[in-house]
């Protein structure tokens, strides 16, 4: 500790180099931080309260494949299932048939009488709830969506069908608040059923959304439901609502492997940058090491001073990088979410610890070889050394 001032002094003596090294490290650590946070959020996070009890059953192939509606009663009978509703993604176009982000929001049909039982965390005034349930062509919109599109109670919303050749004429009957997502529009499944009838289509369901009685019941429900329909005309896949969102992402390729290999490349780049700088800065100083030795510094002390300098630089770099990473995470949280997990993106303490650990290790690894050889150089050789 006595040498701390010397170490710090040393690390700023070539300001330009320290600045460049620290910036380079900070950027890499920032990137590594965001990627690790992303990895943690996608694969190791747990659903927020209120959502952990919700499960989704879909056709094993994809949500565009449908299941017969009679599945619902069989699912309801599974022990541990508290409530189950039919949930059908509708899609369609609002205002424009272009792929316009501005007018894009999720539109779903669900069974209105039990919708709020499956989403108990929603807040919606009782009278609005009743108005929605009473009106076959009514709909409710999330608070965020209402704000974004300027929807008010009583507004008419026309949705042109795409996947389903049915045009909807809806009236906003309520606005709900939810701690998780409130940017969707929900309308009555009955309305859709009528459409199917007029087209001569059989009734079917895109997904069944259910609420479990307790977290302990979830694995059993998943097993029972999927086993029940394994050999039926439409085999199912049941998963938590949280994981259901991820299944869309998994579809884009092997996300896990891509993230990990990028992380690997970034880490290795940091090692190279750090090692390179430390090697330069130590070599520049061999003569000085000779002087220090003449003054009576032992090999260990000199090694310690050089290692300390490398650690100081990598820690400063890591610190700045992590602050930047947290900033980037905050920005990503605001962006339109591809999956719900992004909304909670942050540098968790565990990720923080791992990254600081990595940067310390890198600091050590990058310096150990040049520092060791410098510390071992004999006094005369060191003093004679010309770069």
């Amino acid at each position, binding site marked *: 500790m006595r040498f701390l001032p010397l170490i710090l002094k040393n690390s700023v003596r070539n300001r330009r180099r320290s600045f460049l090294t620290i910036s380079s490290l900070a950027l890499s650590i920032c990137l590594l931080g965001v990627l690790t946070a992303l990895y943690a959020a996608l694969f190791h996070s747990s659903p927020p309260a209120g959502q952990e009890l919700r499960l989704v059953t879909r056709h094993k192939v994809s949500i565009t494949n449908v299941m017969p509606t009679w599945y619902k009663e069989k699912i309801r009978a599974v022990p541990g299932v508290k409530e189950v509703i039919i949930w059908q993604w509708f899609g369609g176009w609002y205002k424009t048939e272009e792929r316009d982000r501005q007018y894009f929001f999720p539109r779903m049909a669900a069974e209105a009488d039990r919708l709020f039982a499956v989403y108990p965390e929603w807040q919606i005034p009782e009278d609005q709830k009743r108005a929605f349930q009473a009106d076959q062509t009514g709909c409710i919109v999330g608070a965020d969506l209402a704000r974004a599109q300027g929807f008010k109670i009583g507004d008419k919303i026309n949705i042109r069908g795409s996947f389903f050749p049915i045009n909807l004429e809806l009236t906003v009957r309520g606005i709900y608040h939810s701690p998780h997502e409130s940017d969707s529009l929900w309308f009555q499944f009955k309305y859709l059923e009528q459409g199917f009838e007029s087209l001569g289509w059989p009734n079917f369901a895109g997904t069944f959304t259910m609420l479990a009685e307790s977290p302990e019941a979830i694995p059993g429900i998943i097993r029972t439901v999927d086993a029940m329909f394994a050999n039926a005309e439409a085999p199912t896949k049941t998963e938590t609502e949280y994981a259901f969102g991820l299944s869309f992402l998994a579809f884009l390729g092997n996300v896990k492997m891509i993230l990990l290999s990028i992380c690997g490349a970034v880490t290795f*780049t940091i090692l*190279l940058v750090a090692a390179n700088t430390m090697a*330069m800065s130590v070599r520049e100083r061999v003569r000085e090491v000779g002087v220090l030795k003449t003054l009576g510094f032992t090999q260990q002390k000199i090694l310690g001073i050089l290692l300390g300098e490398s650690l100081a630089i990598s820690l400063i770099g890591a610190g700045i990088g992590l602050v930047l990473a947290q900033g980037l995470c905050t920005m990503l949280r605001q962006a339109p979410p591809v999956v719900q997990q992004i909304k909670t993106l942050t540098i968790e303490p565990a990720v923080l610890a791992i990254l600081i650990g990595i940067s310390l290790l890198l600091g050590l690894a990058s310096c150990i070889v040049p520092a060791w050889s410098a510390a071992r150089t004999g006094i005369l050789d060191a003093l004679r050394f010309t770069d």
Partner: protein
Amino acid sequence: MKIPLSYNLRNLAVRRTTTIMTAFGIGLTVAVLAASMSLTAGLREAFRSSGHPLQLILMRKGSGAELSSQVSRESFNEVIKYRPGIAKLKSGEPAASLELVNTINLPSTESPDGMNLTNRGILPEGVAMREDFTMVQGRWFEFGKREVIVGADVAARYPDAGLGRTIRFGRGEWLVVGVFDSPFPARKSEVIGDANQMLEDFQRGSLFSSVLVRAQDEVSMQALTNSLSAEQRLQLDVMTEKEYYERQSSSGNLIQYVGTFVAVIMAVGSVFAAMNTMYAAVARRSKEIGTLRVLGFSRRSILLSFFIESMILALLGGLAGLLLVLPLNGLTTGIGADATFAEIAFQLRVTPEVASTSMIFALIVGAIGGLLPAFGAARKQILDALRDA
């Protein structure tokens, strides 16, 4: 007067540890960019080279993909099949094929939990229109039987879908009786069988998905497009098969965005590292710079020489990066196409375009990293430079 290039090369060789480390750092940055680009390049190529130039795909208005489209047998027979301008098959029938498209789920080598595949049901016209198919193994499926043929990519990537195996989908089991190859990569990821058998399994009544039509020539193709899209009884979107596949190549966009974003951030880091290396090179060679100036080399020569040295460093880095991703070339992988909800297999391609973009990227890193140190070197006063320790 120009300072010879060998001066730079020797310098890089003398400080080889630093050179290797800096170049390798740039190399890794380039590798991330090149890898993500080779993925999209491969995907684009797979889709771009798919589709017959004279064929049109007909889908219900607004459906965007065959999977979400419906066309009934009646409207096909009454309104589409006998339109003028449609080419004739050998049998004398019009080259118009009513097709049924579904997705099925099978475990693949990459995702043992199951991946989606496009399953297509066709009628005799559909078989006749697929002259591009060559059977690598086995034979065509027979109509009226629960038999399917699979594309070569399916056979290779899905252990359960090899010749002679049975796969389960719809209401029961299907026997794989053949494996086909096709010059159109998108086709090779499909499982194909008798449409009438599949209609029953998927309870579609008489609702098929899409129609594939071959025009006699380009003029009649345009006329067909116009008359079919204007047909009020049909409400169809008419697209050339080429256009349909090309649209789907956007499926790899997200990966490309992420790859580019990461590469750009890494590049900024690499610029700093290159700058560091070059500043060190300048500092260490202060005396040499002074000597060169005394010998009569101009400031500009010094500037150029250091700048070139940085560029060589970056060039080495770029080459290292490309060497790193080269093994990826030709590697087969699959991606979920966003319109079809099914996997398409394709090969990563380190195309000349990917290679040159990556090299340019590396050189930009070298140029930005080398410019300031080179200026610093050129600005040195002769006497100061000679006096520097």
